[in-house]
């Protein structure tokens, strides 16, 4: 397609996609086929998408966070954490899902496993680096006050590392939500169904699916940003505000 799309065409495509979301359309291809789209179907897939993303994210957090906090607190395993981070970024998700489908089969658990693998590296690396980079003076002072190791983690290191940790959490969440679109290949009908199966849902479906995934990702990002603000200790917030103003 060598012609540039006229602007009006592009805008009307978005209009069609919006129509697809709000009301069921006759399937654009199959003669005598049924209707596609509409709020009920969209909601179904949205819920499925959230379930898979949520489960994968939770699994990634449960696996990566404690390990990274412990390693960061003890000051060990820096090479390991960085290596996981780099290697993890290189994993081709599509291949991973194809692999699990071929050897384990379809199913919710397989997709959750594959997506959790995607989410672990940013959480692991960022949490480790965040804990390591906490002001050593503050940690020393805490030890001097007689805090146990666990108390140092809970009351000093974790709170001060919140911004960096949350960067990792947000990256992982966005990656998982974006990649949960390909869960369709493993038989889980997420929003990716609209995008991948163009011959069922039409161009409007593809665009609608993409818009919904993007909107979902933004919504989650904003939510996590809000939680991050709530959890950031006031002193850190003030410090950042003053250094920003200076």
């Amino acid at each position, binding site marked *: 397609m060598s012609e540039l799309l006229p602007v009006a065409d592009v805008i009307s495509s978005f209009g069609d996609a919006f129509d697809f979301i709000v009301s069921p359309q006759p399937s654009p291809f199959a003669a005598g*086929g049924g209707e596609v789209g509409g709020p009920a179907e969209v909601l179904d897939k949205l819920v499925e998408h959230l379930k898979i993303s949520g489960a994968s994210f939770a699994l990634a957090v449960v696996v990566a966070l404690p390990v990274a906090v412990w390693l960061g607190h003890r000051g060990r395993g820096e090479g390991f954490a960085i290596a996981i981070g780099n290697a993890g970024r290189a994993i081709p998700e599509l291949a991973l899902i194809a692999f699990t489908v071929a050897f384990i089969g379809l199913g919710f658990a397989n997709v959750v496993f594959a997506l959790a693998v995607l989410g672990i590296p940013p959480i692991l690396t960022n949490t480790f680096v965040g804990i390591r980079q906490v002001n050593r003076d503050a940690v020393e002072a805490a030890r001097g006050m007689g805090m146990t190791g666990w108390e140092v983690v809970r009351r000093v290191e974790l709170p001060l590392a919140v911004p960096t940790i949350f960067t990792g959490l947000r990256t992982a969440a966005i990656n998982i939500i974006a990649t949960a679109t390909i869960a369709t290949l493993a*038989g889980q009908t997420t929003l990716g169904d609209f995008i991948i199966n163009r011959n*069922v849902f039409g161009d409007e479906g593809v665009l609608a699916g993409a818009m919904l995934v993007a909107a979902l990702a933004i919504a989650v990002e904003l939510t996590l940003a809000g939680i991050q603000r709530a959890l950031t200790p006031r002193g850190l917030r003030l410090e950042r505000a003053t250094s920003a103003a200076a």
Partner: protein
Amino acid sequence: MTRSARLRALFALIAALVLAFTVAACGDDDDSTTSEETSGTAIESNPDNEGVELTIGSKNFDEQFILGEIYAQALEAAGYTVKTDLNLGSEQVALKALQEGEVSGYPEYTSTALTSFFGFAPEDVPGDAQQAYEDSADEFEKEGLVAFAPTPFSSANAVGLLTSTQEDLDVETISDLEGVSEDLTLAGSPECRERIDCLKGLEDNYGLSFAKFTPVDIELRYQVLDKGDADLSILFTTDGQLAESDDYTLLEDDQGLLPAGNVLFIASQDAVDEAGPDFQETIENVQASLTLEVMQELNARVSLDREKPEDVAADYLQEAGYVE
């Protein structure tokens, strides 16, 4: 070891490895099991066809790959310059590719064409192959497409399950699933949801509702049964797995809502005009030996023995006597 001795040893090792690979690569799998009469008319290369470029497409499952390869290799033997663009996608995608000129033609089933393209209800699809061919050809002509004569074999969608599951559920026909299907998972291609000879028909015409429909790639239709990811799966009556194994059973289509279709090669009018009479003649000639048994066997070799479609197609053309 001295340096030169080491280099010589290394060279010898590499040479040995290269030799081993060459022997392995040249080694021929000689499993020609198709044993029908070599009664086919040998294809003659026509110099008029040189310079005519044809692109042969196909849909996205093994039987289609084999058919595409058979046609492509036959046309090459007839002197055309042939490219293949197999695995285009589902029927809608393939039709679009043909209409936009990306391919010169591809094999389509009369039943699929009539129900999915032209809106026929399943009960209106003619049971007679010649009638179905004529109805399809008429409809395709309105789209500027030419339908060549049908293959001897026909294929239909079928609701299949593991024989063990069938015995547990004690069902023989699709109608027997009434009352039972609410607890069962059905697997099929993504477009199955919209096809009247697939999930849509099962829901609207048979009145069945399933606990879950899992859209999967057509290539996984047996794996989902084997792995237990689905209780029922949409299979094809020409599948090799059905001929070779007793593990799978098809439920009888007692209401006749999953019509069978012979394969018609559909080509664009432009391609037919440019290519001359040999295009149609070669295709209709070379498919004359494709009976149900032969097609099932070819399918089995690709789906089960994991042979390449182009090798299986080449063997078929040779053994049936179309090609040297």
